[in-house]
């Protein structure tokens, strides 16, 4: 029986790969099969993983009535599909957007701004590790001039310049002319290296996925099919 399932998987994999030749009905069939199965899967998972344990069982088994309030608010969201009563959904959306933003703002400030500035200027956050930008690394460089010490000394200044110039590039309230323009230009240089790194990694990711699928076709399906 397992072999039947594996063969179905393999055929569906090939159906998706057929898109590489050109768009075709078999690909479209597989694509829509996936859309339907995924939507069904999500629905069932939402029910058994969230609605049932957090709402239904709380009310029915544990006799807690409070969850009925968010349950009612949640139900109102479904009115979004109605032209006449759609406005009712706004109450619930207001609740989760307001709450979501309220919990996001302070932690985002802390995690994505304050901690990042601290990491750039003051300390690395790792115990026992000196900050990237420190004078002692320069004195070390002058007392013992070599490649390793040079890199160690310039890392901190490069990081600070890089962060500031990247921020300058994203500062759109003033035209990028004069000093700001020059900073922004340096910012672009850093951004390009960053995007290059991301691109390199992206290639790696896509190739990994392909390896996974080919490994399935070659080492699982083909070998089992022919008893290799």
């Amino acid at each position, binding site marked *: 029986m397992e072999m039947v399932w594996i063969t179905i998987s393999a055929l*569906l994999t090939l159906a998706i790969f057929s898109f590489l030749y050109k768009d075709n009905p078999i690909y479209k069939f597989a694509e829509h099969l*996936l859309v339907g*199965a995924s939507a069904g899967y999500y629905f069932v998972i939402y*029910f058994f993983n969230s609605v049932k344990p957090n709402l239904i069982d709380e009310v029915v088994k544990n006799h807690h009535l409070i969850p009925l309030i968010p349950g009612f608010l949640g139900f109102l969201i479904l009115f979004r599909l109605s032209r006449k009563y*759609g406005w009712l959904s706004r109450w619930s959306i207001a*609740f989760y957007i307001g*709450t979501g933003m309220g919990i996001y703002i302070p932690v985002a400030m802390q995690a994505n701004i304050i901690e990042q500035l601290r990491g750039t200027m003051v300390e690395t956050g790792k115990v026992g590790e000196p900050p990237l930008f420190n004078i002692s690394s320069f004195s070390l460089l002058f007392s013992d001039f070599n490649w390793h010490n040079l890199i160690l000394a310039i890392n901190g200044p490069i990081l600070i310049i890089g962060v500031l110039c990247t921020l300058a590039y994203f500062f759109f309230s003033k035209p990028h002319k004069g000093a700001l323009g020059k900073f922004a230009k340096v910012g672009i240089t850093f951004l390009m290296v*960053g995007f290059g*790194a991301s691109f390199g990694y992206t290639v790696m990711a896509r190739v990994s996925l392909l390896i996974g699928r080919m490994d399935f076709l070659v080492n699982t399906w083909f070998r089992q099919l022919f008893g290799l």
Partner: protein
Amino acid sequence: MKRELPLFICALMGITMIIQYFIPHPYSIKFYQTVIGWFIIIMTFAFVLGIMSIARVHWNKVSRKQKDWFYSLVALISLSVTLFVGFAFGIERGKPFMLIFEYIQVPMESTMFSLLAFYIASAAFRTFRARTFEATLLLIAAVIVMLGRVPIGYMISSKIPAISGWILDIPNLAAKRGIMIGVGLGSISMGLKIILGVERSWLGTIGGE
């Protein structure tokens, strides 16, 4: 009522949750815990709404016999079958629901994303050109990271992984941190605008209102 009350609820919840972060009083903690529990339940329905919308789009296509309606029918049938087996037999491993997931959804979804490997290779050949200084920088960084992150780079020279590590640790870090701070400030200001009712596009237009 249709617009003012939602704006009020949004502002009230937003401001309360921000204040709560700074005042961890037992009452405020109790309130916070309750809100989190509610948030999870309400969000679930928002996700369910998404699925209902997908189903409706395909249903309309089939019932109006629009172009490619047959494929929409395929989507609706596979949706119904998955729903049926999920509710009828449960969701544990080995049940039909998980078999569909394991042998139909998993292979197709991961294959779909793996297609990009082919396109990325072809794009690298056709469009990745060292036309300008910036493009050259991007290209060099990409090539070093690509080599430095696989065994062959290490075999060519142990310096390659070291250089690729440095690119990631310093210039890449600077660029990504700049973006992170920029995006962070942007989203915080957007959040404040929403809470204060300056940004109202989330209300949407329903029935012309």
